Each structure stands twice: as structure tokens, then as C-alpha cells.
């Protein structure tokens, strides 16, 4: 393998409030290869969302090195990041297709080409035929699919997802996991996926990075050796159980 797409070395982030210092991330170091889907898993307050925001360029960090992109995969921070949040955050007054087009408008991309790309992406996320609807006409899961299409519209190299299925019911969540894997394989993107769901982290990830809280630190980083495409019955494999047990143990739940 060539150079990593994301390289983090000793990244530390401190929050200061009312004179007190609070260590949000300490000494996080890991590499992400191009095309990987990396799960960041851990309890609330372990710094995983903060780390995601550092990758997005929204937060600064105190020390350590953050490098995204490589000579073979150059990275433009304003055009190569797609974000998906826990809430779909669609604009209520825009039709689904116009919501998907929002990043293209902000970046000033040619609209005709973007519009046809938006249609393709909506088909990719399973929303063909819903282009002209308003967000309130769609279920929560469908809205989240639309927000994934929005994250892909400007063809970014890196997709950052912050607990995107955390607000969905358990069954919809399982379904969205399979959908995400399919979209990831078709779109060929590098994805960093933040979650507090341990089985979700293992099921989706080519690699899982475990964070623990109090004090915040990176506790583990391992490759998930399960074949692709993943299927739901892999969750009953012995290997799958080994991985989840390994995480539970780190989080002090066993």
C-alpha cells in the first residue's frame, strides 16, 4: 500500500472553560488508507466527535500532526469533505433535489451537470422518484439518505459521518447500515464514521478505532478481517463476536 490518505500523529485537543482545562483528545495517532471505511467508536465524551471536527477543519488542535491527502490523492479542504450529521438537517423549504444541490450552489459548481448528478445520487441512495418532494413528506430514514446524497454531490474524497443513524429506530438502522456499505462500495469514498454502536462499528468498518472517556484516549486500532460485501448473518460469526467482545472489554463492560 502507498501513502495513507489520512495521517494523524499525537493529536491533542484541550478545551478551556472557566479556568478549568478539559482534555478532549490526547495523543490520537492513526492512519487511514484511501477507500477505507473507518469506525471511531466510544462512549459520549471520548472525543470522537471532536476528532471528526478537527478532520473537517472546524476545530483547531493543540499539538500533533493532521495531514489529509497524499501525492496520489491531493486533497482540497473546501471541496473534498462531505458531512453527514445525526440529524438530516435538510432545509424544510427546499425540495429534496434542491437540498442535495446545496453544496454545489455554495461551491459554485455548474448547475446543469450537478442537477443530473443529484438525480443519479438520489437513485444511488434509493430515493429515485422522490426528487421533487419536500423533506416533511419523507420518513427519518429517507431524509438521512437524502443527506448522504447531499454529502456526495460535490464528489468529495472524504465523507465524515457523525452518528448518522443514531436517531433512527433499530430496524431502520440495520437497513441503513447495509445501504451505507453498498453506497460506499459504489461511490469509492474514504469514510470516517463516528458511532457509539459497537456492533455497528464492527459491521461497517474495515478498521475500528476505539476511544475511551475519562480520561479521553485512543485505546485500540484494529483491522476488521471480515469479507466484503458484508451480510447480516456475519453478525453471528465467531470472529464478529471476538471483535465486539474486544471493544466491550476496552470500554470496561465485561
Amino acid at each position, binding site marked *: 500500500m502507498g501513502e495513507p490518505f489520512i495521517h494523524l500523529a499525537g493529536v491533542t485537543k484541550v478545551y478551556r472553560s472557566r479556568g478549568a482545562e478539559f482534555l478532549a483528545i490526547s495523543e490520537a495517532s492513526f492512519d487511514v488508507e484511501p477507500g477505507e471505511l473507518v469506525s471511531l467508536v466510544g462512549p459520549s465524551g471520548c472525543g470522537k466527535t471532536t476528532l471528526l471536527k478537527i478532520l473537517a*477543519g472546524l476545530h483547531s488542535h493543540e499539538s500533533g500532526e493532521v495531514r489529509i491527502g497524499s501525492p496520489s490523492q491531493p486533497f482540497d479542504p*473546501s471541496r473534498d*469533505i462531505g458531512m453527514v450529521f445525526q440529524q438530516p*438537517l435538510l*432545509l*424544510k423549504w427546499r425540495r429534496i433535489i434542491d437540498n442535495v444541490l446545496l453544496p454545489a*450552489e455554495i461551491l459554485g459548481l455548474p448547475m446543469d451537470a450537478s442537477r443530473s448528478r443529484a438525480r443519479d445520487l438520489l437513485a444511488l441512495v434509493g430515493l429515485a422518484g422522490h426528487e421533487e418532494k419536500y423533506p416533511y413528506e419523507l420518513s427519518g430514514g429517507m431524509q438521512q439518505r437524502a443527506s448522504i446524497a447531499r454529502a456526495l454531490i460535490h464528489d468529495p474524497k472524504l465523507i465524515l459521518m457523525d452518528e448518522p443513524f443514531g436517531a433512527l429506530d433499530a430496524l431502520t438502522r440495520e437497513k441503513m447500515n447495509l445501504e451505507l456499505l453498498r453506497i460506499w462500495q459504489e461511490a469509492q469514498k474514504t469514510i470516517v464514521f463516528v458511532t457509539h454502536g459497537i456492533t455497528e462499528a464492527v459491521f461497517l468498518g474495515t478498521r475500528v478505532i476505539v476511544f475511551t472517556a475519562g480520561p479521553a484516549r485512543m485505546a485500540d486500532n484494529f483491522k476488521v478481517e471480515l469479507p466484503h460485501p458484508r451480510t447480516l448473518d456475519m453478525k453471528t460469526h465467531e470472529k464478529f463476536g471476538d471483535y465486539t467482545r474486544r471493544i466491550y472489554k476496552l470500554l470496561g463492560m465485561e
Partner: protein
Amino acid sequence: MTGTQLQRYSLAVLSHLALVAVWHFFVVYGNVPKFVMPSPYATLHALLVPNYRWLENIYVTSIEIFGGYILAVVVGIGVALLFSWFRWLELIVMPLLVSLNMIPKVALGPLIIVWFKYGIGPNIMMAFAICFFPIVLTTARGLREVEPDLLDLVRTLKGSRWQVFTKIQLPGALPYIFSGMKVAAILAVAGAIVGEFLGSDRGLGYLMLQVQVTLDTAAMFMAVILITLIGGILYLMVLGLERLLVVSDARLS
């Protein structure tokens, strides 16, 4: 229009007609004196008195209501926009506006007459003063209500402040702006009429004071109905504009 909608509208029309019927029978069979309460027919009949110059008075009162209202909408939204662009301005001016809003605007009437004499202009100011504040307040609130994650999304794309404003902030604030405009529409009517009561030589409020002397209660009833109709038309226009601009799900009821 769906069946249930049709049913709702016809029920609404029926209840209004029923009210007029109750009014009619109360006056006719209760032997109520005409100067206490005229019948619906007598009220309509008042329109035939040429001395009352209904058309001119309707025109004057409408100008006052619409003038004051439109002025309040333009200035109110403008001020709220400035607040959202310059945070320090809001910190300085907003508390001042809140204090000034405590003044009962009606109490300013005599002062306005001293400063600006009486007539259409001062009455427009009265309508403006009374409906300006709700518009500023709701618009400022609406402009503040932006999802922080949505701002992050725009920031990762290095979007400009102007893009945030035109694509997210302003359309997001529209439902709030309209809820303020609906409240203000009703207040504007009250403002203009109070202005006419305090000092004027034309308008429906002025006419009411004139006919009060001669105990022409029917004309007073007619004036009240016409004032209500003008207010109703203004309200419907605002409602129509809201339908046009705001997606149904985003409307604040």
C-alpha cells in the same frame, strides 16, 4: 379542494350567517330601540346616507392602516437584519426597544398631535408605532434560529456569510417573519383607529365620533364592520403571501 376542506369552509360561512340571523331576530323580536342596536338591514341602510361620504372615509382609513403597516414591515425587517449582521447593535438597541415598547402607544397620541398636527400622516405613525415591535422581535428571533451543524456544513465548504444569509438564514426566518406580520396586521388597524379618535378630520374612526353625537348607531355599526373588513383584507393578503413564500410544513401557526 378536498371534501373535508369544503365542509370546513361551508361550516365557517354558515356560522357567520347564523350570527347575523341571531342579531336580526334579537333586534326585531326583542323590540330593541334603534339607537341601542340597529338591525342588520338598518345597518346596511346607513350606507345610503351621502353625507357620511363612506368611500372617502374608507379610502382614508385604508391608507392609514396599509401605510403604517407596510412602513412597519419594511423598517421592522430592516432593523432585525441589521441586528443579525451587527451583534453589538442588537446589544445596544434591543434593550432600548424593549423599554420603549413598554410605553402604551395610545398614550403617545396627544404628543404626536402636538408634534405633527393631525391628519393622515400622524395616524400612519400611530399604526406604525403599534405594529413595528412585534415584527422586529419575531424577525430577529427567526434570524437567530440556525442549526449550528448546518453552519458547520457551510463552513466546511468555505461558504461566505452572504451565502449563509441568503440560502439558510433568511428563508429559515420567513415563517417567523410571517407570524410577526400576522400579529401586526391586527394591531395596525387598532393603531389607525385610535389615531383617528384622538385627532383627525377624515376616516371611519372620525365618522364614528361624528355620528355618535346624533345617536346614529346604525352608521357606527357600519363603520365598525367596514374597519373590520379592511383589517380582514390586510390579514388575508398577508396569509396569501405566506402561502406563496413558505412551504406548508415550515409555517408557524
